[in-house]
């Protein structure tokens, strides 16, 4: 495990101000969620209902996908299927190339992040502009989003001002969010008007009507899909829901769980292309059908990407999204990575959790996130040899009280050495930005005995 920690420690949020700001910002979202939930008597029943719809949908996903495909096609959309991220990128690029498109505006889509679409298109001489403000910020900073709802939450206003200054020639030192947002608006508006294609994600796809539903607060997705003649919508196959009526349940949960809003500012239902335009919908598998076949883990496909589990997670709040090294961070990222990520280290993410269960308590579709994390730990087939030895040793020590006492004594003895910086310290990287807490001096059992003795 230590290699994972070493490699990732560098991507952790630094201690001090950046950490405090990040923690406060995401926990503020959690508090807003709580207030919205408290104001809605239906909320817990809605969660149960949403979970039931998702369980049913996943159980009949083949039928709903076919229904969605035929309804969308009947409305004039062209439906494409992609086995994986590479196939998705290829389809999108093909559509753009055939039409001679050079300039593309894109709204937030975790799927295209998962597929690495931007670098793929840029390498082929296309100009791709992310239009969600947070996404635009991370695009200018050439990094991954660190949060699925607020992609640039790890950045300070001063850093954002500096990025804008470098890339958009805004006044140096500007850090007022209102003015920075206005600069971004003015920079992006002409790009919207000149774009030849718009790429969006999909929040929900309605099988009954062949409709795609896109939820945003900025209205950027709407400009992107209503100005250029070509609209490409990318979605994972798990985004399908059965009926229009089911949509109400998810709309009531999504924004409340994400930001505490009763609904996003814009909820756009799009069925087929607009007059004179084209709509292409790309359905992407990329590991999802495999996950569906896994009876322990299929429920993680129910995720509606609200971000609530990130906002409440003590590990995410402390570490920041980049520490996960995935397009999707936080508890749901750690649950999905072992199944969907191509990188070996994704499979280790379930280890980076306290299993406190806060994520499961807020998830609007009642995914048993901490249970999922625990289950991945059990089925993890890729533990390194060194790690296996450590795990076995731990099992022996934890299984014998005398050994555990001895090990505790040893650790207390070594504590001052561990807490100090020196070249051979196994905790070395962790001490770069933080300190080990003082230890209590004696084991819990010893202190308990003392306490009982003094009471008598």
């Amino acid at each position, binding site marked *: 495990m230590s290699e994972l920690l070493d490699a990732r420690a560098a991507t952790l949020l630094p201690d001090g101000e950046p950490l405090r700001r990040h923690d406060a910002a995401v926990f503020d979202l959690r508090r807003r969620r709580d207030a919205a939930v408290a104001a809605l*008597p*239906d909320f817990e029943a809605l969660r149960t209902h949403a979970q039931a*719809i998702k369980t049913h949908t*996943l*159980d*009949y*996903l083949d039928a709903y*996908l*076919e229904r969605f495909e035929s309804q969308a096609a009947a*409305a004039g959309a062209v439906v494409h*299927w*992609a*086995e994986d991220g590479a196939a998705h990128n290829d389809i999108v690029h093909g559509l753009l190339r055939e039409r001679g498109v050079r300039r593309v505006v894109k709204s937030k889509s975790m799927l295209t992040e998962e597929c690495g679409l931007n670098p793929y298109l840029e390498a082929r001489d296309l100009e791709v502009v992310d239009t*969600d*403000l*947070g996404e635009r*910020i991370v695009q200018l900073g050439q990094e991954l989003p660190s949060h699925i709802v*607020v*992609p*640039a939450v790890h950045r300070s*206003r001063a850093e954002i001002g500096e990025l804008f200054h470098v890339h958009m020639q805004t006044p140096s030192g500007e850090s007022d*969010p209102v003015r920075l*947002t206005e600069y*971004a*608006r003015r920079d992006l*508006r002409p790009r*919207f*008007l000149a774009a030849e294609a718009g790429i969006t994600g999909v929040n929900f796809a*309605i099988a009954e*009507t*062949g409709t795609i539903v896109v939820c945003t*607060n*900025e*209205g950027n997705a*709407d*400009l992107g899909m*209503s*100005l250029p003649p070509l609209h490409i919508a990318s979605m994972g*196959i798990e985004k399908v829901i*059965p009926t*229009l*009526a089911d*949509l*109400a*349940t998810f709309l*009531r949960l999504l924004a409340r769980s994400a*930001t505490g*809003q*009763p*609904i996003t*500012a*814009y*909820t756009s*239902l799009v*069925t087929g292309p607009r007059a004179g335009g084209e709509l292409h919908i790309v*359905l992407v*598998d990329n590991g999802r*059908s495999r996950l569906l*076949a896994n009876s322990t883990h*299929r429920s993680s496909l129910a995720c509606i990407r609200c971000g609530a589990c990130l906002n409440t997670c003590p590990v995410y709040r402390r570490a920041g999204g980049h520490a996960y090294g995935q397009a999707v961070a936080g508890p749901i990222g750690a649950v999905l990575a072992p199944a969907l990520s191509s990188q070996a280290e994704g499979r280790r993410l379930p280890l980076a959790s306290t299993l406190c269960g806060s994520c499961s308590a807020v998830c609007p579709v009642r995914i048993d996130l901490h249970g999922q994390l625990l289950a991945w730990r059990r089925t993890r087939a890729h533990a390194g040899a060194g790690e296996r030895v450590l795990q076995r040793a731990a099992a022996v020590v934890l299984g014998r009280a005398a050994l555990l006492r001895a090990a505790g004594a040893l650790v207390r003895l070594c504590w001052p050495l561990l807490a100090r910086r020196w070249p051979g310290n196994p905790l070395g990287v962790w001490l770069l930005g933080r300190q080990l807490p003082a230890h209590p001096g004696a084991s819990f059992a010893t202190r308990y005995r003392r306490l009982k003795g003094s009471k008598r």
Partner: protein
Amino acid sequence: MSARDGVLARVRRAARHEVSHPGAFEPARMDSGWERFASTLHAVGGEPVGPVQSGDLSWALSELCADAGRVVMGPGVAQSLGPGPWEELPEGVSPQSLADVAVALLRGSIGVAENGAVALDGRHAPVRALPYLCERLILLLETSEIVPDMHQAIARMPPDATRFHHFYWISGPSKTADIEQTLVLGAHGPRSLAVVGIRDLQ
């Protein structure tokens, strides 16, 4: 095998076809009056106006649009208004030609008390980009069309709503909080949104 057949075959093998759909949700009873709608709309950054009698609408809108620049009104609004500082949405125009619109005046339908959203049917916004290009959006809403929650709102959508390629739920103006969680109105779309309640349209 095509990608489609490959994906579907795997999904078919994995789908168990066991758990049935839970049926309709039974929402808790909530109020659906203009007051509740208006207070929710206010909370999401929108401006509730009125409700006004249809006879006073022209006057109320003239007030709202005074000195605004280019005001364009969509279908379904014109017949209830006399002349004023507005033009009718020209037919067959490109969305790009509406980039300078200051105010879009559109006929909304169905208001949702629980979240302040108003439905904008594609027929009332034939140029799909108009409600996002304008600086200020004004939606007209009959107060009798307010429902308590999203379930009833969606049940009220006209049966052919999804055939008309776009149907919007709009709750408040465009907003972002992407810079240090500071709420800023007018990220891309309208900086302000007013919903004018009408007691007796037509």
